[in-house]
């Protein structure tokens, strides 16, 4: 794998080259073989319980592990027209949850309108907020808006210590995140009895798997309470995917082979049964449909006969579609599994 070390950072936006490396050079057994041995091949959806909408790739942060390669320089952003298509889907189906992600979803100019329209349709809304955006002046009112709408807030805080958090998410991010969490707590988020859910996300700050979710959650609760008087509801452990920036990190740090072997050797059939793609449908900023946000960033649209664009949405076809898989899927089946809602077993 030494030859990969010389690859330029352009790799993080070269999807074809990423797929070639992940699928052809990882040196591990094909993911579909693991599924087959578990009696799960071909992997199929069991319904659509979550419509995950990526509102755009623009972000005020440039985290080192970001599979979206999001940042302030990204211009891709969802239009109101595509959002209206999403709302039409909600009108036509009973999909109960809408999960808003990005980039920083708040940076989409139609964000508040879109959330309001979803809530009018009485659906549960999850906003994946990076926290620091809430400490900037233009977005200072957003915590109150979240509360008014009753949205669930899910936010990354890779560790309860400053150095490890800033190492992954950028200098100063930890202190701003703490500031935002205090503000959300002040609104009632993360507090017992308020019904306002504030869930945090643990990402490994390197080439290793996350710990047992319940164990690290207890530690987060104790440490954040003791150090900062911060409360939250649940901690989700999420495995880093060998995609985009994290893939570049793996290659440059010469951890690629070892990490892929780790994901492969940690394959858990029970996690494979519960992977999130089986109940999630991901929509990109330009209206294309994917099995998950990771496939979206690898530009692997839904396939096997399912409609690929929101303009051609067909619930019955999508609810039972065959999932598009690749070697990166080992990231969701390693150990206790990984999803946007944390461990799956």
């Amino acid at each position, binding site marked *: 794998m030494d030859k990969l070390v010389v690859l330029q950072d352009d790799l993080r936006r070269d999807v074809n080259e990423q797929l070639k490396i992940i699928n052809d050079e990882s040196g591990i057994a094909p993911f579909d073989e693991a599924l087959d041995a578990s009696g799960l091949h071909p992997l199929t959806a069991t319904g659509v319980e979550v419509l995950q909408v990526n509102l755009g790739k623009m972000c005020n942060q440039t985290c080192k592990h970001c599979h979206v390669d999001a940042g302030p320089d990204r211009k891709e952003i969802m239009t109101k027209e595509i959002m209206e298509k999403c709302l039409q889907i909600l009108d036509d189906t009973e999909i109960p949850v809408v999960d808003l992600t990005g980039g920083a979803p708040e940076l989409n100019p139609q964000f508040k309108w879109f959330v309001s329209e979803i809530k009018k349709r009485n659906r549960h809304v999850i906003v994946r907020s990076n926290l620091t955006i809430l400490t900037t002046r233009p977005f200072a009112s957003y915590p109150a808006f979240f509360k008014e709408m009753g949205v669930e807030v899910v936010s990354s805080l890779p*560790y309860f210590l400053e150095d490890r958090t800033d190492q992954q998410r950028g200098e100063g991010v930890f202190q701003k995140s703490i500031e935002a969490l205090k503000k959300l707590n002040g609104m009632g988020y993360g507090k017992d009895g308020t019904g306002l859910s504030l869930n945090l996300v643990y990402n*490994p700050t390197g080439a*290793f798997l996350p*710990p047992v979710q319940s164990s690290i959650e207890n530690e987060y609760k104790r440490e954040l309470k003791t150090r900062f008087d911060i409360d939250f509801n649940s901690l989700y452990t999420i495995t880093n995917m060998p995609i985009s920036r994290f893939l570049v990190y793996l290659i440059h740090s010469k951890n690629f082979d070892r990490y892929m072997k780790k994901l492969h050797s940690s394959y858990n059939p029970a996690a494979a049964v519960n992977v999130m793609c089986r109940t999630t449908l991901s929509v990109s900023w330009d209206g294309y449909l994917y099995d998950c946000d990771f496939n979206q960033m690898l530009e692997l649209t839904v396939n096997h006969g399912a409609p690929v664009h929101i303009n051609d949405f067909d619930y019955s076809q999508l609810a039972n579609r065959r999932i598009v898989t690749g070697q990166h899927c080992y990231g969701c089946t390693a150990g206790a599994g990984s999803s946007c809602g944390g461990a799956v077993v």
Partner: protein
Amino acid sequence: METYYDPLDLEKFADMGKNVPELWKKFSEWYGNVFAEGALTEREKALIALAVSHAVQCPYCIDAYTQECLEKGSNKDQMTEAVHVAAAIRGGASLVHGVQMRNVVEKLSM
């Protein structure tokens, strides 16, 4: 440059069962049970293993249990403290043998 220790050799650990499968089977089962959650958590056991790895100065074990500690949720502060415990015991073990030296000095001296 060739060295006695190659990180990739760790993946060949199971080769130690090739000529003695029953012994390897017993070792593997016992090893697995040792590190399972019990009166001590898996995380505590991983930290002990990390400290012992340094005491026995096994590079394979240091590599494996550094990763294991991270995956059990330990941080660098905790892991460094664990290694200091190993170092303190090693240093203390040398030092306490100085009592023997002093005993011998006393015995040989007028």
